[in-house]
């Protein structure tokens, strides 16, 4: 579906502004009299607070106020449960222990805030932190997931019987019965390692309580401006429209910025109102690593039952999921893992069990992928293990079990993060792999390239995997499209933007319906005064859900243009057509009225209008899907491994994806490339590591390795497949997380293949050369 604007590879309209350094970011907000905040954070992972003496800090010149939990009185309360667990899953257990705004009585992870200083500058605030005496009695830290699950473990929350945060068992078919029919059963223990969102810009928050207007204005780097507004209004006992949340340009979201109950979100509005002063807080990188959320960290016990010919009969997965010290985001991440473990393949019998556990670590909430990479990683690793056991080619065993177009829609029997039974709406999963194998020249690689390279002493290896990406989830989004008197169009939506290219793709959707230039469409996102309904930017739902709402609103405005123009031009509606920027009579382009003039006529300042006519050329519309749309794809990586140093070079990376209708192929490719770089980071660089005392060992970019441009393959080859989703009028599926999902299992498989004589059996989603060396050493013994 390609139109004049829709589907065209239009360059990003926002880039000129961004690349020339003229975009407004949160640190650009300056308000006279603004104060600055800094948090004192616990060094202990788990400790009883004995004393926090802030008397010296309060005397520090330039310090305005210092607060600890006690100073907030009744305002101090554990935060809301941002995402409740789905009630539809029978017999599931969930213990909500939401984030506390600032530690009281006990600290539960290293980096948890214990005091906050408000000062004339951030420098002074940080100086004053050193004047605070924080006395605590350390407790043993709960770190190991499996040990934490035991009833004998030290407890993170003393009022709970154990560290059980959730227990969810779901089964489709009957795994144990299927196992009896199997020729082979393969089992493995697998690890999905933890990674950070690590956006270029950390979190930031500026709040200004305006006593005279009785209004609170908040600038925040949030992915969810409207939920943040609801949260702040609720805490401050204000009606929602007394709180205006603005999200300026943001340097990346990647998940953690969805949180609305962190210390800054909760405490700074209260302090601003109390002091009647604007306050700025910008998170530094160390704080981001320590206390903003991160994700993955699961331990899986998997079993796959197959026939000799490679047909999968059943799959069983019991896994531990680390939720960190609190679980404000419910079970979204492990539920995504459950739904993505089996969604590629025809698996009639599936048992899956979540054991979500509290630990003395930072809180786990979605990071790009959000449980999906873990599910795909374990499934793909098990396919590799099965292929090895059956002496089958890894591509062949996948080909045999991948879903074909005629099998959709397919009910999975597993309830997911959107609270309903999973339905794979459309796709051609086998077709993805077929196209991938062509692109990567799989046969030629196996038969010619790889053996020839071996003769030359080069160890090349290939990995091929399949994946799905659950996207475009509800509940809903909305948009308002308005034609201005100057003929330009504004479109406002409730989601915020973190670099995805919304200013361009939303303009394309509007321009297509209204036949105006894309440059003439002004997109407004993330300002609650402009649009005040919506849930936010996450789960690849911006273009799909908000985009569909924008499409719907544009269609309504188009209808209104036709109705209004028909009246003013004196011809029936079917005689009216849109010329660029104006409306004219079909076949008589000389009889026309510009859109701007028509907008003025639709909003008369005097005289009478008909009672049921709404003013202006404007419409508001919403879109709510019944459930998420599932994108899919396949990925191949060819690596060149130096068997002595274990340095690894990615020779080729090919990714085929199917996200249904494409709004802008250029931006699509950019988004996939960005996610691939994150996937490569997850596979070979990025890893969050705690020691046994709960100390974070990766609290800076010196130890937490971000993938760099120089670490990327020279080229990412991207192939497109197109099956429309029946779930929205444009047939779209999301794609924001696609590149990050299949990369780790493809990488691991390729490394094993390159070092095939060592018969490695890699269990981890994040590798490094030293670790591969240790694996080789173990297998040699």
């Amino acid at each position, binding site marked *: 579906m390609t139109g004049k604007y829709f589907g065209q590879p239009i360059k990003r309209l926002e880039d000129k502004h961004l690349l020339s350094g003229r975009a407004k970011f949160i640190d650009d907000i300056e308000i006279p009299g603004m104060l600055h905040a800094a948090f004192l954070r616990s060094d202990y992972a788990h400790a009883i607070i004995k004393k926090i003496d802030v008397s010296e800090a309060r005397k520090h010149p330039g310090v305005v106020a210092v607060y600890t939990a006690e100073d907030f009185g009744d305002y101090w309360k554990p935060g809301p449960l941002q995402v409740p667990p789905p009630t539809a899953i029978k017999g599931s257990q969930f213990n909500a222990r939401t984030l506390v705004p600032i530690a009281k009585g006990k600290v539960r992870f290293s980096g948890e805030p214990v005091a906050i200083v408000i000062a004339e500058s951030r420098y002074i605030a940080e100086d004053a932190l050193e004047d605070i005496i924080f006395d605590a009695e350390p407790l043993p830290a709960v770190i190991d997931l499996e040990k934490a699950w035991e009833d004998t473990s030290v407890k993170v929350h003393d009022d709970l019987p154990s560290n059980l945060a959730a227990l969810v068992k779901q089964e489709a078919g009957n795994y144990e019965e299927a196992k009896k029919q199997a020729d082979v059963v393969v089992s493995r223990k697998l690890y999905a390692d933890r990674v950070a969102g690590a956006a270029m810009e950390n979190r930031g928050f500026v709040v200004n309580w305006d006593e005279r207007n009785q209004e609170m204005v908040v600038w925040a780097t949030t992915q969810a401006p409207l939920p943040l507004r609801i949260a702040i209004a609720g805490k401050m006992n204000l009606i929602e429209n007394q709180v205006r949340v603005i999200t300026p340009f943001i340097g990346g979201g990647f998940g953690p910025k969805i949180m609305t109950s962190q210390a800054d979100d909760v405490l700074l509005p209260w302090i601003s109102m109390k002091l009647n002063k604007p306050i700025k807080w910008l998170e530094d990188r160390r704080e981001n690593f320590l206390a903003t959320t991160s994700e993955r960290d699961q331990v899986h016990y998997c079993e796959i039952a197959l026939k000799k010919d490679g047909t999968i009969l059943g799959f069983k997965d019991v896994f531990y999921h680390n939720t960190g010290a609190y679980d404000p985001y419910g079970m979204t991440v492990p539920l995504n893992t459950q739904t993505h473990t089996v969604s590629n393949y025809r698996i009639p019998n599936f048992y899956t069990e979540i054991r979500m556990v509290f630990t003395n670590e930072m809180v786990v909430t979605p990071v790009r992928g959000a449980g999906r990479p873990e599910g795909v990683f374990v499934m793909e690793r098990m396919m590799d293990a099965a292929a090895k056991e059956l002496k089958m080619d890894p591509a062949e065993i996948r080909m045999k079990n991948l879903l074909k177009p005629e099998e959709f829609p397919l009910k999975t029997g597993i309830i997911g993060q959107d609270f309903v039974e999973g339905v794979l709406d459309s796709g051609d999963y086998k077709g993805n792999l077929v196209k991938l194998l062509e692109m990567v020249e799989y046969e030629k690689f196996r038969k010619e390239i790889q053996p020839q390279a071996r003769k030359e002493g080069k160890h090349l290896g290939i990995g091929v995997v399949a994946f799905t990406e659950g996207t475009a989830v509800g509940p809903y989004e909305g948009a308002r499209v308005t034609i201005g008197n100057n003929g330009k169009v504004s479109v406002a939506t409730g989601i915020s933007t973190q670099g995805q290219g919304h200013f361009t793709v939303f303009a394309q959707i509007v321009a297509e319906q209204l036949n105006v230039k894309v440059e003439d469409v002004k997109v407004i996102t993330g300002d609650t005064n402009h649009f005040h309904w919506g849930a936010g930017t996450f789960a690849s739902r911006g273009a799909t859900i908000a985009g569909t709402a924008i499409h719907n609103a544009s269609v309504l405005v188009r209808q209104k243009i036709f109705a209004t123009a028909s009246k003013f031009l004196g011809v029936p509606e079917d005689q009216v057509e849109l010329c660029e920027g104006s409306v004219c009579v079909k076949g008589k382009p000389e009889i026309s009225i510009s859109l701007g003039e028509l907008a003025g006529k639709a909003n008369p300042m005097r005289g009478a209008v008909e009672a049921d006519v709404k003013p202006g050329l404007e419409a508001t519309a919403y879109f709510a899907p019944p459930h998420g749309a599932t994108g899919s794809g396949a990925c191949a990586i060819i690596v060149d491994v130096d068997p002595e140093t274990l340095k690894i070079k990615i020779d080729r990376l090919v990714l085929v994806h199917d996200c249904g209708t494409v709004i802008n192929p250029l931006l699509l490719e950019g988004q996939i490339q960005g996610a691939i770089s994150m996937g490569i980071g997850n596979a070979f660089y990025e890893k969050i590591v705690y020691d046994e005392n709960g100390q974070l060992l*990766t609290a800076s970019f*010196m130890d937490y390795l971000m993938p*760099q441009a120089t670490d990327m393959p020279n080229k990412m080859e991207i192939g497109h497949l197109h099956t429309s989703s029946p779930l929205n009028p444009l047939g779209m599926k999301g794609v924001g997380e696609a590149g990050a999902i299949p990369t780790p299992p493809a990488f691991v498989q390729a490394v094993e293949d390159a070092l095939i004589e060592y018969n490695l059996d890699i269990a981890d989603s994040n590798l490094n*050369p*030293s670790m591969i060396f240790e694996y080789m050493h173990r297998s040699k013994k």
Partner: protein
Amino acid sequence: MKPVKFDYYAPASVDEALDTLAELGYDGKVLAGGQSLIAAMNFRMARPAALVDLNNVPELSYINPTPEGGLAIGTMTRVYQVEHDPEVAKRFPLLPEVAKFIAHSQIRRRGTFGGAIAHADPAGQLPSIAVTMDANLLIRGKGKERWVKAADLIIGPFMTTIEPDEMLAEVVLSANPPRTGSNYQQVSRQSGGYAQAAVASIVTLDENNLCKAVRLVLMSVGEVPILSQKASQILVGHVPTADAFKAVAEAAATSEIDPATDLHATAKYRRNLIRVLVARSLAEAFGRAKRGG
């Protein structure tokens, strides 16, 4: 991540800088390119009471030939200048070869040649290269100056014999004898990243193709750059063969280093790297020496 309050001095000449350092004593800290110091200050790991910024002292930035055929490099010369200087490339090809491993070009444009050596980071390339090249270092203080060899300057991780009132002013590199070859090998997690292990070598052949001299330095596998004694013992006076390189590699990996285990590499893996990189580096350096350097 804001630094502790500090005083800031921006002298315009070496004399003024030395006067300021003498006055400040233990309170003063020289600021060169700032690529390590400023980050350490922002983390509040470094808390100097005063910075003496040398960036406004143009007389400290130069690359001059010495009468003996070597080069004298001013301490504030940017790494990027050294990397791209044709005289440096002609006389000391090891330097541009190493430079491209040092972080990224943006950082090399700011980071200084002398600053990196004086910082004595055991994972930094330039302190190790200064030891490999047997650099002569001019240390100046108010009314005093002294020369010291690189190996004697560095006494521990981030520790040198430079006194608080002194600064490294110049690095002098002596000309290589004929039939000298050099090579640098490094393994790091990322391009521009810290080395898990690295090896630099400078070797000279005599007219009979016997090894006349070898300086092999092992980096990131101990508290300071390690000048291999085994390499000289095994190779000098002998025909440099692959077996001999293997023997040096084995000896170096087992007896001359003290690698640590950290997040990115185990000690065992680092030993393995030294074994691999020493053999590769010596083979390449002798090959280059044979071809005339």
